């Protein structure tokens, strides 16, 4: 499989967050902080599980700061660097 670009990863994450929140993906901005999108503890863990299954990265134990997680754009950049 070709390595995904940060933009592809961002698109994948937006799609997943839209599924978790039950909204259209156009309603999700990659630069909006996750907590203002309506993500809570459970939906955030769902997202972390999705990242582990899709990108083989176990972020729950990674010691990332909240700044790394704060937006889907930042998260996609991190995943891209790690992949």
């Amino acid at each position, binding site marked *: 499989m070709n390595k995904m670009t940060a933009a592809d990863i961002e698109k994948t994450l937006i799609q997943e967050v839209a599924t978790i929140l039950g909204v259209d993906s156009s309603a999700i901005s990659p630069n909006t902080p996750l907590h203002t999108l309506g993500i809570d503890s*459970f939906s*955030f863990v769902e997202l972390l599980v999705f990242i582990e299954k899709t990108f083989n990265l176990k972020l729950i134990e990674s010691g990332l700061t909240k700044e790394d997680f*704060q937006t889907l754009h930042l998260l996609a950049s991190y995943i891209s660097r790690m992949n």
Partner: protein
Amino acid sequence: MKRYLTGIDWIIHTINHINKKETGVGNMFQVVLQLEGQLDETTLQKSLNKFIKKFPVVNGRSMRDYNLAPYWKIYPKNKMLSSSIRTYRLDNNATFSKVLFTLEQGINMPFSSIREHLVFHLIYAGKTSFLAVVFDHCLFDARGAEAFLNMDYSHRISLTEPAHLCKWKEKFEAGKRVNRKLVQLSKNRPMSLPLNSASDRKFNFKIISLDKRQTSAIIETAYNKVGYLMLMPYALAISIRALHSVFLKRGTHASDYIIPVSIDTRSAEKVHQEVFFNHMSFFLLRVKAKEADSFSVLLQSIKQQVYDQIKVDLPGDIEKASLLMRIAPLPVLGYLMRLPLKGQIASFCFSYIGEAAYTSPVFMGKKIHNIFHMPRVPIPPGLGIFFNRFQGKLNVVISYLDGILEKEEIDSIVQELTLTLSCEEREK
């Protein structure tokens, strides 16, 4: 008209049955709106009568279909019961403890008939009024009740649910996985507090309400100690720690806390369409009592278990497996639910409901100061800690059955929670 009940609905019906048998009052729940000024009773009554008539589902009752699937019978609109509002006038300078006493009376009062599932209590206390919406958990869950108050006359809701009498293999596979989890949890008898046997026991409540500044500080502490958006594991950890010393002082010999954590299975968008019935599932967490001695170990254990259970979709498996349990009559299922954990169901119940589904800052023209929840808890365990948030302000409610805690014990739990919530640094 009928609406089939899901497996989770049937579990809630079973808890309702058990609670009625134990105390004469079912598995009721109360959502309380604290309002600025005096809400007009006549306007409220008229408005509610008109509004509730639009939703005959509120006067339904459960029955069993020819295919054996349980369903909620919805009667025609001309057979609706009128909505009930009870009014209480307290002194102008009534303290919150007096208001709480009145609220406790409301939540401990049984419904007047098998078709009554919703009652309103209006309490006037000086310049403030409290509207308590008492409902049968069989009719809706807590977020559903909040969303119900948010609806208007034109609101369209979904009441359809299939009988779920297909995909049996999938349900049995899920049942197998849930059973394995229960076997794993039941290796040791769970920590629990003994219940007394009087039949007229009522539930008591303690409420800790925080302002926006305090809530922000707690969220920040949770971020720093557990991680981004990890308020729920933090809330559960401080609840366990607050109860731990009481359990230890009682000399409980068991080694594990078993805590069912309820979660909403609807997305934030769907809560306004799926208002009625129960749209929830559970995590089943086991925390070793010795883990509660170290806060960081406790936090890590909870966080990891939530992650692992989401990864294997335990809440989804419970939803599927519980569909199989609908065949069991309520007394039988009530008996079966106590079997794996040697007569217990849990050490205590816990839920963290995020921001309220009631989104408006006003109710019938009156500013809302706060919304908090007062649930009766399944018996056993007869004890629960519940977190909810309204407009960025956190509430913590402890619900406990008569006789389960001594006065000094509940005082120490409240003190411990208050201290931790005030973000005092007490890390071991």
